[in-house]
């Protein structure tokens, strides 16, 4: 019951019918396995929503094929595809009650009244809206409308569930709560799902796999930890989480790893991460939470240590962010529970260290 995209390409037209030079979706191939929750993540205009709408059938690709459960559905209209979408604007039918909104798809399939009653109430139970069945949509809050939209989509037992930034209109607290709920329901029912978002936290917490898109193409696809720990390029590294880029050069191989020179300090990177020939110039992706700070008079408990000066402090309660100037380059450090360690001050000299074994090297092109 998976979804397959084969070399899907889509260009948009200007209102005059001219084909725009910008390719919205550029030769995208992707395999989504049965029961998998895949997130399409990327900046606005990267083609993620267009890709989703191509799967739903709202957009026709200019080239390529879309397969659902192994069947070619490229030329099928949305109503002939076994997909169900949860829209960003919820798209609740304003003239129908909550119950009738959820029952809409079942009634189209001419389900018997008893079946409609049974399945709709079960869905409303699942999303926690049992007492709202007779309400009109305009009496619901944003979060409740979101649940109606979800119930309406899954009651038809679609082969594929599609989410188009469904949480972007909710406030932060509700967003986190709904995120967990969507994941719970998706896993309970085991529905193959494609989820579009530009919020990386949402993508990380929801997905089996994340597909990072940029300018119409797939930049990288992988599990949340693969994406975060082994970004394929600068774009991915910067889009998911924050990153420092530290220049280094491969100087030789050693047993089980390669030796790199980081501003005159040698370090070993395990082969499991990657292998490059001697002389390759690389950039280490150093996540700010792996950067450690030490007082200038204490011992630096890190294998890779530099001396620097604090240029900016942002105190945020659970963490503190520092910009540290090391020989003219700036390093970002995010230190957890600052109350425990004591804050550093702007202008203070500090020792900066980071663990090389978790820093991912990118080849400089």
């Amino acid at each position, binding site marked *: 019951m998976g979804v397959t995209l084969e070399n899907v*390409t889509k*260009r948009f037209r200007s209102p005059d019918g001219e*084909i725009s030079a910008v390719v919205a979706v550029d030769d995208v191939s992707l395999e989504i396995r049965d029961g998998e929750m895949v997130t399409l993540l990327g900046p606005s205009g990267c083609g993620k929503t267009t890709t989703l709408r191509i799967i*739903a*059938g*709202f957009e*026709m690709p*200019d*080239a390529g094929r879309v397969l659902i459960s192994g069947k070619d559905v*490229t*030329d*099928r*209209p*949305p*109503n*002939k595809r076994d*997909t*169900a*979408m949860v*829209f*960003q*604007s919820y*798209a*609740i*039918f*304003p*003239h*129908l*009650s909550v*119950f*009738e909104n959820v*029952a*809409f*798809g079942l*009634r*189209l*399939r*001419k389900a018997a009244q008893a079946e409609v009653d049974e399945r709709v109430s079960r869905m409303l139970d699942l999303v926690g809206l049992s007492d709202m069945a*007779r309400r*009109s949509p305009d009496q619901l809050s944003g979060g409740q409308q979101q649940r109606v*939209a979800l119930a*309406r*989509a899954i009651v*038809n037992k679609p082969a594929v569930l599609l989410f188009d930034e469904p949480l972007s209109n909710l406030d932060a607290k509700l967003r986190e709560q709904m995120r967990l709920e969507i994941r719970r329901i998706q896993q309970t029912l085991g529905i193959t799902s494609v989820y579009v978002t530009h919020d990386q936290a949402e993508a990380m917490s929801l997905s089996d796999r994340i597909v990072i898109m940029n300018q119409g193409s797939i930049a990288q696809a992988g599990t949340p930890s693969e994406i975060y720990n082994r970004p394929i390029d600068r774009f991915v590294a910067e889009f998911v989480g924050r990153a420092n880029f530290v220049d280094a050069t491969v100087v030789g191989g050693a047993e089980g790893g390669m030796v790199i020179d980081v501003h005159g300090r040698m370090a070993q990177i395990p082969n499991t991460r990657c292998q490059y020939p001697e002389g390759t110039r690389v950039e280490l992706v150093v996540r700010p939470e792996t950067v450690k700070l030490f007082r200038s008079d204490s011992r630096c408990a890190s294998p890779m240590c530099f001396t620097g000066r604090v240029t900016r402090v942002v105190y945020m309660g659970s963490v503190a962010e520092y910009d540290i100037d090391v020989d003219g380059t700036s390093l970002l450090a995010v230190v957890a529970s600052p109350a425990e360690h004591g804050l550093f001050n702007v202008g203070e000299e500090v020792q900066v260290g980071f663990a090389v074994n978790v820093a991912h090297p990118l080849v400089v092109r």
Partner: protein
Amino acid sequence: MKVTSRLWRQTVRLSKEPALLSSIIVIFALLAVFIVYPIVMVAVRSFSSTDAPGLGVYSKLMSSSYVRRSLYNSLTMGAASAAISCAVGFLFAYTVTRTDVPLKGFLNFMAIVPIVSPPFLGAVSVLLLFGANGLITSKLFGIYNYPIYGFRGLLFAQVVTFFPVAYLTLKGVLESISPTLEDAAMDLGASRLEVFSKVTLPLALPGIASALLVIFIESLADFGNPLILAGSDFPTLSVQAYLQITGMYDLPGGAALSVVLLIPSVTAFVVQKYWVDKRKYVTVTGKPTSTAIKSVSKPVKWVLFGVCMGVVGVVLLFYGVIVAGSFARLWGIDPSFSMKNYQYVLGVGREAIRDTLAIAALSTPISGLLGMAIAFLVVRKSFPGKRAMDFISMLSFALPGTVVGIGYILAFNRKPFLLTGTLAILVLNFVFRYFPVGIQAGVATLRQVDPSIEEAAANLGADSPTTFRKITLPLMAPAFFSALVFAFVRAMTAISAAIFLVSADWNLMTVQILNQVNSGRLGAAAAFSVILVGVIVVAMALIRLVVDKALGIRYQARF
């Protein structure tokens, strides 16, 4: 290569939705037969004059000073009528939307009333007020032969008839100008006059231009008022085309005059649709802004109120005099109360009343549904020829009734479309003449409905017709209602095209009223008009009931 594959896929996609594809084809066929074909016939026929074939008929026409005067009169009347109607309409709209005068509901109501009456009622009123035995001229001032026929009388009647159109358009325009912009200007130090002249007026300008052109088109097409009021000293194109055919049996000449009338109308329409409309500003977005009711100072407010009440007074006078006239034994001579006009009308006019109702009842729902369907296709679907569909269907609004009437006689008097003298020709004529307003209302409403609501329906398995029936149409209920009301009112009050199409079997109240006026029985015409307006008011209430019942909020979606 990519393009062909895209076109190919668009076609493949359409072929998978046979209902959608066939409705597009059917609509195109209908537009071709009932809008384009009759107009083409008019042009073709105008070249077939026996004594001056080809373009000869035009040079012959233009050499006649009478025709040249008709053209000049029609154009100047159109311009004057548009300017004054818009000025009055703007004043009303500004007062209602930007001030806190009392009786706003009443002002609004009185400004809309003339829309639901036959378009030539103004002319009848003018005769009752200023004619030979007129209330004002002869009774008040003792003038017995005031020259009300001609430019002045016609302009007066047209302004009363058309200013409501300007009012409705400009009210919408002013409501769409966010009051926060005016607040901002004032906050930056502009005086009230500067706010008006530097912010409000410039923003309203495209809307005003649009209203001017619309009324110009309506004035050119106006047939009833000039027929009654213009007299032989003030010929206009629409009346001359009619007289050429019915009086002189000169079909090519009438057709040629129609073409001459068509040119300024269609030009104004194209300018309005493709130039002015693109320049409209939209400054109200999403959140409703509270109206700042402080745009004018107190004295200005009361002056505006006074002027509006003056106009309301004229409207009341126009309608009052019709009612009074309908109950008077003999207007201007014997004012005693009498029902004889009604007895007479119900005697000779019973069939016309029945026919008119049947024709209106048949054409209204077809016209409304067709309008909504075209609005849906134009806004929501993409298919080859979409722009042509939009243009042709809106064009029929700009075609003067006289031209359409002549076109219908020419087009449908022989096989395969032998319709002359039937009920069908009248119904079809009304359907295709009055659906553009439905399309406009439908398009405006649909543009405000989030497309994902319909996508959700498709996504849940509804095909295009089901989505249209179950989701789109209910959401368009307000537009659908106004389309139905408009189509009904127009079907009840139409005259210009219909006068060519009525027959002994199928006659219309408006044509009967005109006959009464022409034979000098103003009282009977007034009584007929009162009945007509009464029927319209009852029907509007009925339509509201039916639309609410059928499309209003339901908690059970039936399939």
